């Protein structure tokens, strides 16, 4: 076991954040708990010594693959796949393997910090947890506290905003901020991610569903890059059967991806024009009567209207060829092949909204799937089942002074819970909010890198009186926060038990492999302690300003008042009376019994009859459920495909997918369309400081067509300035034929501006700094592929 980077560098990394600013702390004291957790190592090696094996759920991306952590002498030395979880199919991807480097990242946030300099200059003071909570409540000489803000705002809880990234502890933060403290102003990753996909599919076939890639025989995968943006179990199931082995694969993508490399055919579709492709496929299907007529009659509500609509509008392959860059013959061929296949799937896709028409694109895809009749059945898009876990109700108080959320401008269907990041931020910047927004409570979320237009996000953060961050690393956003609370990483915490549904449902639990390092705490402990700190002072603020509370409590004696406070949910601490471990056990035992709990504790996974169903098939693969027990068909006669959605028209949304000419792909001469994406070695900005992953991809490049690059004298590695209407970045060139001459591509998540993330700082470009902050009109979700840029060598 060796230290693989110099110890000096490790120390430098560890102390950098803590010694700047007022208080200087000796390096030795910072590592005082080093012995307790064993010697810190950057690269691990397993040995023959006795090890603990702890089941965990991966936290490197959103998939939650199950793994087993090998812990030797208190140090996590290896992460292996857990063969019991159906969803993750006994595997860990490169990020899953590299989780150890996130756990032992020298740049981790180790202690609570309070800002002592100006926002963004990185000057913080190490404080105790209580001092940090106190700074949140009462502020310091540098910033106002929550109590003063709510006093000035007369207890209008809506003046506090909050955001959170995806994860198992997200719900608890929503309970604290939304249900308990009482603000509706919440934004998360949905409106910068897959909102229109979820919305479009839910509105059309009732759910997003799951594509049964193990049994499908034909797939159109458009704009989804399953070989690089790994999704379980889709990725695992797809690529064992592509390349002439049972799953014919048609890929649409403006660039040639690793998924395209696995395809039978790849179409270089123009960005934002997939809808025209699907409409033309649909035209062929109606024109040649290729659809499943019985199925359509039974389940496709309004399909005849759609048939007339598609034919009347002349959405022919010839029409689509001009828009999409896909030859008409190929569209005919694809439509015919799709409908003559036994189990065809038009893959739903995930990730970001590409273009303004994304909601309609997803509707058109879902309807097209419906026309094949391959829904709610083996080899199709299935609905499956989920194992129910009992839910703990939160007693949520009513605050008379709190107001409704405001981020509705330009949005047809207002998704009440999570809103729109761009609209929310921009309305505040433009002063269009009807009441002030004065604080942001943030957790595991980095809008500086995730929300288009980084400059605006920075202005937005600077506008706040108070910014609080709960995270594991000093992200770009963290550096604009006033109070920073260090969270335990996923390998250091037991998380609320989770249930995953679809074909082979299971209950899973993440268990802490080691105790939280340094002074970090688990999210639920942070919620609890913050609630304990805030509850009395905020209650007093409500007594002072809330007329309903005043009316209700007039003349009450102290004990009556205390009872009222408890009974009406003003006690903020109530959801955290029990620990995560206690709650997990309680919920699982209640739903499935003691035996199930023991299985879950030992194996990390439980589902009914697991002992009977689970079998090893060969050294690599397992059976989780026998085929006749998989939930292929669960809807039956309740299945419904909403083709003509008349109510949408009332909201100003096309009731049936319709092409509008303004959606055509246009790039002015001399400019390029910017497209972005992900790959298997990084999730987003959260993984860019990981040393093992940096080894694989040290930076992002701008992909530019080889011939175009040659014309401009650009060679591999040349530094380019990429400029849009909102900003510019510097990034190195990668000339390749895998992209069109009028497009450029870059990986998302790089170009970090936080100097405290040593591995990530200054590496590559941040796409959010140049993607224009445009929204699609249905939910206000961020549109990622409608920005044109200029490039020049620098």
């Amino acid at each position, binding site marked *: 076991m060796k230290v693989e980077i110099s110890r000096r560098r490790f120390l430098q990394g560890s102390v950098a954040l803590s010694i700047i600013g007022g208080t200087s702390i000796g390096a030795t004291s910072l590592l005082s708990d080093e012995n307790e957790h064993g010697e810190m190592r950057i690269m691990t*090696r397993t040995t023959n010594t006795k090890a603990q094996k702890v089941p965990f759920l991966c936290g490197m991306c959103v998939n939650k693959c199950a793994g087993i952590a090998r812990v030797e002498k208190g140090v996590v*030395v290896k992460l292996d796949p857990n063969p019991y979880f159906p969803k993750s199919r006994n595997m860990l991807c490169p990020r*899953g*393997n590299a989780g150890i480097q996130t756990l032992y990242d020298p740049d981790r946030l180790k202690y609570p910090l309070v800002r002592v300099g100006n926002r963004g200059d990185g000057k913080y003071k190490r404080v105790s947890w209580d001092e940090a909570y106190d700074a949140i409540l009462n502020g310091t000489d540098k910033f106002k506290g929550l109590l003063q803000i709510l006093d000035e705002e007369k207890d209008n809880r809506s003046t506090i905003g909050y955001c959170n990234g995806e994860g198992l502890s997200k719900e608890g933060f929503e309970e604290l901020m939304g249900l308990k403290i009482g603000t509706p102003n919440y934004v998360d990753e949905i409106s910068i991610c897959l909102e229109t996909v979820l919305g479009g599919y839910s509105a059309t076939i009732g759910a997003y569903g799951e594509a049964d890639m193990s049994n499908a025989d034909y797939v159109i995968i458009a704009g989804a890059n399953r070989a690089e943006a790994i999704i379980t179990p889709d990725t695992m199931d797809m690529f064992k059967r592509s*390349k002439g082995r049972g799953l014919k694969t048609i890929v649409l993508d403006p660039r040639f991806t*690793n998924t395209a490399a*696995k395809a039978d055919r790849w179409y270089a579709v123009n960005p934002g024009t997939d809808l025209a492709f699907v409409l033309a496929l649909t035209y062929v299907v109606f024109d040649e009567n290729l659809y499943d007529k019985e199925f359509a009659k039974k389940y496709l509500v309004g399909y005849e209207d759609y048939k007339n609509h598609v034919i009347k509008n002349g959405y022919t392959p010839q029409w689509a060829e001009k828009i999409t860059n896909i030859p008409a013959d190929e569209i005919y061929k694809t439509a015919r092949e799709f409908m003559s296949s036994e189990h065809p799937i038009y893959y739903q896709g995930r990730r970001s909204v590409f273009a303004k028409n994304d909601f309609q694109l997803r509707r058109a895809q879902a309807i097209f799937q419906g026309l094949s009749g391959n829904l709610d059945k083996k080899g199709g898009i299935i609905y499956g089942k989920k194992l129910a876990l009992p839910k703990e109700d939160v007693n949520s108080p009513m605050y008379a002074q709190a107001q409704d959320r405001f981020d509705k401008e330009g949005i047809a269907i207002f998704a009440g819970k999570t809103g729109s990041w761009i609209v929310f931020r921009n309305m505040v910047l433009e002063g269009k909010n009807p009441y002030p927004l004065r604080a942001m409570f943030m957790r595991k979320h980095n809008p500086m890198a995730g929300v288009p237009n980084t400059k605006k996000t920075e202005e937005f953060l600077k506008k706040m009186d108070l910014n609080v961050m709960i995270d594991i690393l000093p992200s770009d956003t963290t550096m604009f926060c006033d109070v920073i609370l260090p969270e335990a990483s996923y390998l250091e915490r037991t998380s609320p038990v989770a249930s995953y549904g679809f074909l082979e449902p299971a209950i899973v639990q993440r268990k802490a492999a080691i105790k939280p390092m340094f002074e970090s705490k688990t999210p639920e402990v942070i919620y609890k302690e913050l609630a304990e700190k805030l509850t009395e002072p905020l209650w007093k603020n409500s007594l002072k300003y809330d007329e309903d509370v005043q009316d209700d409590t007039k003349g009450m004696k102290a004990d009556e008042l205390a009872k009222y406070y408890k009974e009406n949910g003003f006690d903020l601490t109530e959801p955290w009376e029990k620990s995560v471990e206690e709650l997990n056990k309680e919920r699982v035992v209640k739903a499935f019994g003691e035996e199930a709990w023991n299985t879950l504790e030992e194996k990390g996974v439980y589902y009914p009859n697991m002992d009977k169903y689970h079998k090893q098939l060969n050294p*690599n693969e397992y059976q989780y459920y026998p085929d006749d027990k998989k939930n292929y068909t669960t809807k039956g006669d309740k299945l419904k495909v909403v083709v003509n959605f008349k109510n949408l028209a009332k909201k100003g949304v096309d009731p049936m997918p319709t092409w509008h000419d303004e959606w055509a792909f246009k790039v002015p001469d001399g400019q390029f369309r910017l497209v972005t994406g992900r790959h298997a070695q990084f999730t987003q900005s959260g993984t860019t400081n990981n040393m093992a992953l940096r*080894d694989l991809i040290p930076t992002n490049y701008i992909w530019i*067509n080889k011939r175009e690059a040659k014309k401009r004298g650009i060679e591999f590695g040349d530094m380019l300035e990429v400029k849009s209407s909102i900003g510019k970045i510097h990034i190195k060139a990668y000339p390749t034929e895998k992209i069109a001459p009028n497009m450029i591509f870059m990986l998302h998540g790089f170009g970090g501006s936080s100097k405290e993330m040593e591995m990530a700082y200054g590496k590559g470009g941040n796409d959010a700094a140049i993607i224009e902050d445009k929204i699609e009109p249905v939910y206000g979700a961020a549109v990622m592929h409608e920005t044109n840029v200029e490039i020049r060598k620098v």
Partner: protein
Amino acid sequence: MANYGMALDYKNCINCKACEVACKEENGVQLGADKHRIWVGVKEIEGLWPNLSIASSTFEPSQCQQCENAPCQEVCPTQATHYTKDGVVMVDADKCILCSYCMEACPYDARYVKEDTMTVDKCTFCSDTRLLRGETTTACQATCPTKVRTFGDLDDPNSEISILLAHREHRTLKTHLGTKPKLFYLI
């Protein structure tokens, strides 16, 4: 005594590099892109956009071929490179003098210099980590999302690898050199 080999269903490979990270974590391989025991070979795509040859874009997972006639073993002046009783080609770091003859001799470029010990290092089939503990898979096999690799005993007719090789067409790399590799690429 076993005769270990590996079959690779290489068409499954999506070039995600999970195997590379798993190998490094398991075996303490140093950080640095030039230090690796296993890798995925990628070819530059042929054609001009949008007429690209999908067939030309392949991913070839690779590592030490564990040759039966290993050129690296023949040239080693100190017997640092040797065969284990299970037919695995290993480097004894205590004997290695870093003359680097083996690196020159290997036709598969499967060796690199481990800088903390300044000795030559290569794939061991996890002999000194996982196999030593009684595990039956290598780190690269166990973690693979699309299950490219099957490791096992070629002399055991009932092992999964023997069954695979008996039923599937396969090839070895640079067969003409007579190195008799024990990595088999399934066709």
